[in-house]
């Protein structure tokens, strides 16, 4: 394990990725405690302020402290994205492993159906689900999880197909173990590494998807401090102070780049060959 961490931190991607993701984690856990101001208190006298010792990143169109809003909004943005990605990955991993285990016609049918579902762009899928179920955070989570499942199923299947040919799976089949046992206990544990890599990278897509939903008015609602919503609201006032637009964008970028780099670092650390 320590050897693995060492290998992860040796690549620049891995090191920077770990640093950024840890930073995000700290903000998610401690953000509300660290925030110097209440994120929703309006101060009409302190609108459009630039960065200063009192307001580190300045204030927005209502005089709210941008830094405090970013710290508190991290939970809405990042936690939801991580949860949705995990849910989508679990569904996809299960479908993909099952499909690879069954093989033959069943596999063909499942994969063609997955391809069909993937022909609907994930943003459109999420838009439809959220709009029709009602725009709430839980529905947005369900929407993103469903939108991610097919892609994860496809990746899991290709990994699981190579695992399926291994001797230990044949041995389990020969022992007469049930299909459920073989899928859950023999195959899933061995397809997990590549899935974790893919999942890490997908967290950044999920952050963007959530932000885009809020931007289009179908995710978090004002006055919530969700980052996508902050960018959306800033559009009308960006001529007066560019900071309102830039800081939430930077926050989204840090999360996206952090998880992307961590995913690339994990891939290199798990695959010493390349």
């Amino acid at each position, binding site marked *: 394990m320590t050897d693995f961490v060492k290998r992860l931190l040796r690549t620049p991607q891995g090191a920077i990725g770990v640093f950024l993701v840890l930073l995000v984690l700290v903000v998610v856990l401690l953000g509300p405690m660290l925030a110097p101001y209440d994120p929703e208190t309006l101060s009409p006298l302190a609108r459009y302020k630039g960065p200063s010792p009192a307001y580190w990143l300045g204030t927005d169109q209502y005089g709210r402290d941008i830094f405090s809003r970013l710290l508190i909004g991290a939970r809405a943005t990042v936690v939801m994205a991580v949860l949705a990605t995990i849910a989508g990955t679990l569904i996809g991993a299960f479908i993909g492993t099952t499909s690879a285990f069954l093989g033959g016609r069943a596999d063909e049918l499942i994969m*063609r*159906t997955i*391809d*069909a*579902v*993937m*022909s*609907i*762009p*994930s*943003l*459109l899928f999420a*838009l*439809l*689900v959220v*709009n*029709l*179920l*009602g725009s709430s955070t839980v529905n947005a989570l369900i929407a993103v999880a469903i939108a991610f499942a097919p892609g994860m199923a496809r990746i899991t299947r290709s990994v699981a197909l190579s695992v399926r040919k291994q001797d230990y799976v044949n041995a389990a089949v020969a022992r007469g173990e049930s299909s459920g046992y073989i899928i859950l206990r023999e195959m899933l544990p061995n397809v997990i590494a590549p899935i974790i890599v893919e999942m890490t990278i997908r967290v*950044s897509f999920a952050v*963007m998807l959530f*932000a*885009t939903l809020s*931007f*289009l008015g179908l995710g978090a609602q004002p006055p919530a401090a969700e980052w*996508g919503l902050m*960018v*959306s609201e*800033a*559009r009308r006032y*960006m*001529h007066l102070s*560019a900071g309102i*637009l*830039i800081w939430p*964008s930077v926050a*989204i*970028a840090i999360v*996206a*780049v952090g998880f*992307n*780099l961590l995913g690339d670092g994990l891939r290199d650390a798990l695959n010493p060959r390349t």
Partner: protein
Amino acid sequence: MSPNYVAKRLVMIVYTLFIVSLIVFAITQVLPADAAVMMLGENATQEALAALRENMGLNAPVWQQYASWLGHVLRGDLGTSLRTGQPVGPVMLEALGRSLLLAFLSIGLMLVLAIPLGIIAAVRRGKIADMIVSLISYAGVALPEFVTATVAVLVFADLMKWLPPTGYVPLTENFTSGIAHLVLPVCVISVILIAHVSRMVRSELVDVLHTDYIRAARLKGISRGTVLRRHALRNALLPTITIVALDVGYLLGGVIVVEEIFAIPGIGRQLIVAIQARDLPAIQAGVLIMAATYSIVNFIADILYAWLDKRIQYD
């Protein structure tokens, strides 16, 4: 490439569209609102509502409603918009044309930039050029389209006044103005695609450059440049066709956001309007058309791939 393979792929498209039609119909079924209430308004009398429901076939079992809807779709009738009362098929297809213009220009710009960037990064692996290309690609995946679009409008339209901020002018009406209106949307859509495709080209080419036949060609005394052009690129660029085709899914998603921000009357904007107004026939038609576009692009890509790569023998 056998005719059998083409036939098999065509059957797959039909299956894809069948599954999509099921999904679309299922999603619109869970909608809490009633189509009859939506058409006549909240204040309609019970008798009027009941008559309309009967007329629209809403009292029939769900599978019958689906069969009747599918039958109309197969005959080319995608339904009538609840919002405008116009047939949705022609409206959506006209909007699709504008979106495709946007999509093709974006793919063109992406190919012109992403492939050279990927090649440079692979050939100069580990050098400064490689790092700069990776930095560009990380920057590309860091920001969602709505952020890049908003910043692009702020900088190039509002501050510098080089380009018009939003709107759409048909190219047939005023070519220069039409192009000027398309520059920012096309650049915004291409950013993520360039980031993704240049990384893929790089990793494919790095793999190919380490194969035995490349080493053999170099040992024969052929120059690096010739080996790259005649041997490596041919094999490394083939998978790009598949990657670009799969990226069309992202592209269509990006088109939705970008059309909304730049006020381009394409299929993405039509869909957002339809979703906000809960205009069921328009939603169904829009999603079906998008899925069909994606399937057809992937079909063409697979055929092209099989045609270019003689090693692939599909049965």
